[in-house]
């Protein structure tokens, strides 16, 4: 008892915030199933998500100065016990994930009701919370194996969530199955990588691993571990040639689920990639292996152009946005490839800004699906008139996707181009702006369809319900707010980038 008291010098609720962040949705999920009440499912999910969001805000405020919080689960000190470690990088991602989840839930109610049968909704909210738990857990934990466990929790629940789209379109089943196969391969690669690391270091605590890797001479085991982890996480990130699961998964999942996943899942995977590259393997190691220039950079560029070009030729708005997501992930990878503080900062801020932008866009798509019966361009004809609020929000979010000044997307583009110029990579800076122009084309296709075509008279769509419009507008206004006042996002991403680049020395 006495020794345990030493670890728990203070037992106020505030000290337990890191575990509560994950625990609240984790406990709420089975609660929904046990209660089995259709009426209570949504309120429980919403409250749990909102609590997580509040906790994430509190955590972010604590670590914005560059410090970190280390929480020992059950009082077991690391490296034996599991450690939750919160610093600016992951508190920022926690803030994003829980924030998007909380805004989407009120929206999801009406959208899900229309897209899946009522009997499934209770379980769906439980799965949604499990998915949220997994994503938050991946981000907050400081234990490599724990990352894998939470990654699987989120992935497994995601497969089921996507499959729920089968009530509208049976192809959701094959989309979920594809993702299941590829996601499992990714997870397997990831766990093999961690196995190698455990073999080389004898520990699973990430900070501890980092120290032990740093003192070891460069071994083949560690290199193999690095390769497995980058490819495994790369599948989850949807790095360009590993992206094949994403378009179908996003297209056929229920709209609210797509909005949630697009704003969070790939962002969390990017975070894991960053965390392992910089905090576990250390910047020094990353500089030695030619991963950045041979793999990350070319594939980032391929994504920026290949996926953008594909997006232009889609006929379904939802699928177009899915391809655009792959292209935007390219920007985040590009920031990593610069291997500089400016570059990582651009990655972090793009991660956040694109998260809110894409969430807003997919929410708008959900409203169109609800009222116009689909998201193909021919469904959208003339909706600018019959659904003015939804369409206007889509225009705002679309501007942010392009990176028009005054929107969040502009801030990330600016930082990215600046990072490219800082590094003296002239041609890359030109390529970044060139690929933004491709975004102009596909966003403009959407705007022309909404505003400059006539709708068929018999298909007059009604305005979307308020419960969907308000969350949609919160996200759309966030796109503008974070484009004008970048104080919070900038300081968080700067601290995060500094911490990441400092490697383990930054974690001490």
């Amino acid at each position, binding site marked *: 008892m006495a020794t345990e008291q030493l670890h728990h010098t203070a037992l106020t609720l505030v000290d337990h915030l890191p575990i509560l962040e994950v625990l609240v949705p984790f406990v709420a999920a089975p609660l929904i199933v046990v209660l089995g009440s259709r009426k209570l499912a949504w309120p429980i999910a919403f409250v749990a998500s909102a609590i997580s969001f509040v906790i994430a805000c509190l955590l972010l405020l604590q670590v914005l100065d560059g410090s970190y919080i280390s929480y020992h689960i059950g009082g077991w000190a690391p490296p034996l016990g599991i450690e939750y470690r919160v610093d600016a990088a992951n508190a920022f991602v926690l803030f994003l994930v829980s924030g998007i989840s909380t805004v989407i839930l009120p929206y999801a109610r009406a959208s899900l009701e229309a897209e899946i049968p009522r009997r499934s909704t209770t379980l769906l909210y439980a799965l949604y919370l499990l998915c949220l738990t997994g994503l938050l857990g991946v981000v907050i934990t400081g234990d490599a194996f724990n990352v894998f466990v939470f990654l699987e929790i989120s992935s497994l629940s995601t497969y089921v969530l996507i499959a729920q789209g089968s009530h509208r379109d049976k192809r959701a089943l094959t989309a979920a199955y594809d993702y299941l196969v590829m996601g499992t391969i990714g997870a397997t690669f990831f766990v093999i990588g961690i196995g190698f690391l455990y073999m080389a270091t004898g520990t699973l605590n990430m900070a501890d691993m980092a120290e032990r890797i740093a003192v070891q001479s460069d071994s083949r085991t560690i290199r193999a571990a690095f390769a497995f982890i980058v490819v495994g996480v790369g599948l989850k990130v949807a790095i360009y040639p590993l992206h094949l699961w994403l378009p179908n998964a996003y297209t056929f999942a229920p709209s609210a689920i797509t909005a949630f996943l697009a704003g969070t899942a790939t962002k969390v995977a990017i975070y894991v990639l960053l965390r392992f590259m910089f905090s576990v393997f250390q910047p020094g190691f990353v500089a030695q292996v030619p991963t950045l220039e041979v793999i990350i950079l070319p594939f980032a560029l391929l994504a920026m152009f290949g996926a953008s070009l594909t997006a232009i030729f889609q006929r379904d708005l939802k699928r177009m946005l899915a391809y655009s997501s792959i292209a935007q992930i390219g920007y985040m990878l590009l920031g990593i490839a610069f291997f500089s503080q400016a570059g990582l900062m651009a990655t972090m801020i793009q991660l956040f800004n694109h998260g809110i932008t894409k969430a807003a866009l997919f929410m708008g798509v959900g409203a169109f699906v609800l009222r116009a019966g689909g998201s193909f361009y021919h469904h959208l004809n003339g909706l600018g008139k019959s659904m003015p609020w939804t369409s206007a929000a889509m225009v705002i979010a679309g*501007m942010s996707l*392009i*990176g*028009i*000044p*005054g929107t969040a997307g502009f*801030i990330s583009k*600016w*930082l990215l*181009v*600046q990072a490219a*110029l*800082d590094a003296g990579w002239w041609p890359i*800076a*030109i390529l970044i*702006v*060139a690929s*933004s*122009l491709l975004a*102009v084309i596909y966003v*403009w296709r959407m705007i*022309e369809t909404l*505003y*400059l075509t*006539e709708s068929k008279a018999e298909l007059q769509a009604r305005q979307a319900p308020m419960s969907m419009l308000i969350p949609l507008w919160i996200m759309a206004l966030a796109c503008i707010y974070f*484009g*004008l*006042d*970048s*104080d919070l996002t*900038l300081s968080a991403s700067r601290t995060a980038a500094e911490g990441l680049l400092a490697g383990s020395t930054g974690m001490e």
Partner: protein
Amino acid sequence: MGMDTSTAILLSMILPAVAVVLNLVLRHRDNLRDGLTFVIAAATFAVVLVILYNVGNQTTAPLVLFEVLPGLDLAFNVEPLGLMFALLASGLWIVTHIYAIGYMRTNKEDNHARFFACFSFAIFSVMGIAFAANMFTLFLFYEALTLSTYPLVAHKGTPEAIKGARTYLGVLISTSIGLQLVAIIWTFGLTGTLDFTQGGILQDHIAGPMAAILLALYAFGIGKAALMPFHRWLPAAMVAPTPVSALLHAVAVVKAGVFTMLKIGIYIFGIDFLATTGASVWLMWLAAFSIVAASVIAMTKDNLKARLAYSTISQLSYVTLGMALATSMGIVGGGLHVVMHAMGKITLFMCAGSIYVATHKTEISDMSGLGRAMPITFGAFLIGALSIIGLPPLGGSWSKWMLMMGAVDTGQMVIIAVLLVSSLLNVAYLMPIVGKGFFIRDNAAAAPVKNLETSPLVWGPPAITALGCLVLFFFAGYIEAFLMPLGASN
């Protein structure tokens, strides 16, 4: 009046923004909506006059709203060029609004509320551009102007309008994001600031051919200045209803382009820096080429609005030329030309609209004899055309005079020749329209001439601006003195 300048600057932007909202809210109440917008337009002009009264041609300290990125503020200030642009745009907004009401109603166009809302949004953007205290703020409103005028170009919703609007947006957005933004970020990387500073911010930071490349990124990136070869958007924009072509594509949008060009020359590069490094010599030749080439193309166009559009491309390059000459005379002449050309060209476009409303004729070859039926419209057209050509006693003569003086200062005899040739070309493509109108009789119209003039809301405004061209001739001295600080070397 007891309004302080900061409040006035903000009001000059808030008022048009209010007009946007009012137009959307009151979309079913035509008279109330258009009446209130008129009141707001007048109030905006009054507010800008208050700024003029308070500040004169001094430069004020920036009013910083907030910091968007470190070192990048959303900030506004007053300086002579911006104030002149704000006065011009807000003053002509009143006239054009009256004209637009007449045009849209007589011509039975649809979607009035959307039209006037976008129109007001464009004016809001123009005010932001005029009072921007740094290049970042200017760029923000520059893009807002592009986006808010896109729905106006696409207004009719016909395949032709959509195609034109695509070209419009495509050229303007791709030049601004692809070139101008790169130039801005580059400048910021070099100097750590984007504030408009008398004498420029770039000296000691960049030299030799790199300065010329940076200037090229700006000059082509400012697509709104319609420098060849990025001029295609302007003829494409002519599918818009004529009030849009009049205020936006003869005044607000294109002038925002050359205004930005002047700002770059004066406050980012600095004219002394341009003169000593010779970074702008190539731009001078390109502008000279644009002036002549666009005039020649204008002669080949039979569509009246297309001819006027190419004429605008040519005249805009006068201003770019003034900046590229990098002498104080050139800069002030360029600034003066912004005003003079605006007054002349808006007259011509409103006349073109008046003809269209009355007869639905767009081709010059169909307009024989119309002058007798529409004496006020064609009279105004004549005065506007003479001002564009640069004949006294009309405003346009002064700015051309000053530009020539600027060319003399630099000893560029070829440029003087270009300016003379261009004036002759102006005569060649503008005067036949008037001549046909008044002197050639249409065979079919051998019957007694009946008056075709439509609503006074349509023919009144061009008559007013034609008068404006005349008045400007006598007040050019004031404007020149007002703009003089721009040419001061630092």
